[in-house]
């Protein structure tokens, strides 16, 4: 596959987004309108522009990554548009901002390369933790940057600019910073971590003092869970850290200990925190608790079942009945209107992105780049599994967005930067 094929696929996927918007218009008795052309233009500028940035600053990057991303964004966008036209308009602005930021990352890394991230890992860690803590700023002080509590979780900051205000979730960017830090830390200490271990039966355990980073990661996760009440981000970061530790050391003990800690944390938090307990109840018996905790899960499953094989068609189902359909439950909305066919396409596209990401990690010769590519792909894949698995009752719902599909500016920006980093690594490894 070449860059030109990729460009053709980007144009095709932009058409897909505009076509989806038009179908939704048809379902409402409308027709081709300004929304159609705006959507096509924004997709073309966002991803065409991103490809130009790749051609300029990372020309040898894999051409396999952008196309599935555009397709996923297009499918997600048509559902967001179907559910909330105003949000779709905002989402278009966030696409442009995200593409700009991703292009900026590619431009900044074009001279020094990704190794600069390894060099400044401690600075990145400090910035990331600061970002994570931002939402805990006071909500009612005079400073224009405020924390905000939404649905019992403290994840948002508001930047008041006088004429308007911007809301974002700094954790979406902090996530990338934390993965970068862990990848760099592990690359620096990889030898020590690999060689100092003990064999206990079939499990290889690191030296106790080598467990400190693992415990630190666990600590960060617990803090997020308790202080910000964000079950999803907490689980995502912890699972990402454990998988990276295992990838770096090959010590199965990390997996065993990590699984045990996650389980302990899960059980303890479901006993201690009401908001976690409600999710467990909704997971186990959604229909029995239909009027209360189970409503969202039950509506999600009704949506999927009603979509059945071919789906109701864009704009013709009732995904608006699902609470938070355009964010947490975008997958159920797609399943209702595009059917089993659409659901399978979405899962397959995500699997494609994950396999390309892992392929980049696999072929990397440099330890840091290998671990960074692996770590970024892990958190991407885990996030997909956590939210779709939550909707499909494989595990409790964790309230996390589906990358590139859910409505949400910060997540879109964060994920576009994540893809930019993967592209940059694949370029450096091909050089």
């Amino acid at each position, binding site marked *: 596959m070449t860059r030109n094929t990729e460009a053709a696929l980007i144009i095709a996927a932009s058409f897909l987004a505009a076509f989806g918007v038009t179908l939704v218009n048809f379902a409402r008795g409308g027709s081709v309108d300004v929304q159609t052309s705006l959507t096509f233009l924004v997709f073309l500028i966002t991803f065409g522009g991103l490809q130009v940035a790749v051609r300029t600053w990372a020309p040898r990057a894999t051409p396999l990554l952008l196309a599935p991303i555009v397709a996923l964004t297009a499918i997600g966008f048509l559902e967001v548009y179907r559910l909330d036209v105003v949000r779709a308009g905002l989402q278009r602005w966030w696409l442009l901002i995200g593409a700009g930021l991703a292009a900026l990352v590619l431009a900044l890394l074009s001279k020094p390369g990704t190794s600069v991230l390894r060099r400044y890992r401690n600075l990145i860690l400090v910035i990331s933790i600061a970002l994570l803590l931002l939402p805990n700023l006071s909500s009612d002080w005079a400073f224009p940057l405020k924390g905000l509590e939404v649905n019992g979780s403290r994840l948002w900051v508001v930047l008041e600019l006088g004429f308007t205000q911007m809301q974002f979730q700094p954790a979406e960017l902090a996530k990338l910073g934390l993965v970068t830090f862990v990848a760099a830390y592990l690359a620096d200490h990889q030898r020590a971590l690999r060689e100092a271990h003990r064999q206990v039966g079939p499990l290889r355990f690191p030296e106790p003092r080598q467990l400190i980073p693992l415990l630190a990661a666990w600590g960060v996760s617990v803090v997020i869970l308790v202080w910000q009440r964000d079950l999803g981000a907490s689980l995502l970061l912890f699972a990402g850290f454990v998988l990276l530790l295992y*990838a770096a050391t090959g010590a199965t003990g990390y997996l065993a200990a990590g699984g045990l800690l996650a389980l302990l944390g899960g059980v303890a938090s479901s006993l201690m925190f009401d908001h976690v307990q409600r999710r467990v109840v909704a997971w186990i018996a959604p229909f029995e608790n239909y009027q209360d905790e189970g409503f969202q899960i039950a509506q999600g499953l009704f949506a999927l*079942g009603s979509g059945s094989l071919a789906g109701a068609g864009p704009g013709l189902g009732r995904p608006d009945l699902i609470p938070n359909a355009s964010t947490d439950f975008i997958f159920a909305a797609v399943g209702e209107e595009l059917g089993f066919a659409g659901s399978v396409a979405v*899962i397959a596209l995500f699997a494609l992105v994950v*396999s390309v990401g892992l392929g980049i990690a*696999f072929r990397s010769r440099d330890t840091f780049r290998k671990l960074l590519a692996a770590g970024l792909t892990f958190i991407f894949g885990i996030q*997909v*599994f956590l939210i779709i698995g939550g909707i499909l009752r494989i595990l409790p719902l964790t309230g996390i967005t589906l990358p590139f599909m859910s409505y949400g500016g910060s997540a879109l920006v964060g994920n576009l930067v994540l893809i930019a980093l993967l592209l940059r690594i694949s370029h450096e490894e091909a050089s």
Partner: protein
Amino acid sequence: MNGPIRRIAIGIFAAMGALLLAVTWFQVVRADDLKTDPLNPRPALTERGKERGLIVTIDGTVVARSVEDPGSRDYIREYPEGEAFAHAVGYSSFLVGSSALEAAYSSQLRSRRDLTISDIVAVILGRDLRPENLEITIHAGLQLAALEALGDNKGAVIALDPRTGAVMAAVSTPSFDPNLLLGDDSAQQWETLLIDQSRPLIDRGTLEIYAPGSSFKTVVTATAIDTGTAGPGTTFDDPSEFDLPGSTATISNFGGQTCGGGVSVSLLEAFVRSCNTVFADLSIQLGAVDIAITAEALGFNTEIAYEWAIPQAVWPTDDLVGDDAALAQSGIGERDVRATPLHMAMVAAAIANNGVVTNPYMVQRIFDAGGQTVETTEVTELGRAMAPETASVLAQMMERVVTEGTGRRAAVPGVRVAGKTGTATGHGDFSNPWFIGFAPVESPTIALAVFIEGSPSSGESATGGSLAAPIASELIEIWIASQS
């Protein structure tokens, strides 16, 4: 490091595989269960707001239509005639379901603009996705008159075209306004109607069976004439009480008197005055099985094809063989004999139609949005119930009921009306007055059954002759006037 990454990759792809399996489970294996789960609001909501077909009477009165709300662009169902057609046409409500024709013809009345892929194919093939419409055989004038004539009575009127079985009027009272069941408060409105002691939601005309009382004497008389057992001139003993065989109980006539002079009385006189003693005697002479032959040819103990499932009329042959006391009571339409008002109208129609029973129907034709007929109902016959001569003799006897007997109040000036009254025993002290009949006798164009449930008063004022016959008279008069 590639070793662990490979193993993690396997793990992640296994997780993706699990997602595929789970989504297959919910969207393929369990899709139908989830789609139709009673908790799932989608099926009702998708119908809501969509266009539904027109229902229009044969004389052009619109009784159900969908009107587009200019704001929301949703269609709202309307029943312009309100409670007059509540039981015939029914309602289609997103909260409490649907009934009558609205339920029976749901697949024709609903818009087919819902399944995108098949929609597109259908449009390419030039098919119309707009809902189809129903033309029904009911005459709006007759229907409204029937509702008004029943007034505050609980009861039903069914009028048929005896030549075709077409339902010309079908009213059940008390009725309700189906428009109340369409709004957001429809569940509460429904609840109120449901607990109402007078049971307004029940269609007494087609869905409830009642003892037909003396109106059933038409069936017994037809059997007698058909089998040659007796004719109008055949004479019977005329006691004031008939002793039930094997029992100390007796059957007496209305008012406890003899039928004629006290010595003997003809079948015609007994029929005209509706004497129970003679018909108890005659029933035993005929036997349960012979009556069953005529009754079953008239559709008793038989499933009758109608627009929706209706209960069978009952002549309990097996219980009556060898039990003459029960047979004598059944011969006057009491005990366990049962029929819907629709069924008794069919009996009257069969006599009017020279003995041939036609299947009743209400939908004349289905037509598409462009007015093109999609389907026309063909008249079907259940079969011959009695010889043409029998029907003719019986018609003359029924005419005498109206000219000089119990049904005098069904008379219409200038029109030859035939009929038979009935006053069945209801619950407790209540009686259930009936009148079945047809007109004009020489060439019948209307057959009807008037039924009143649980008339509280007793005596002469609560009989079929005094309560039901005047309603029949009024409707026949209106009908004949509208035909000329």
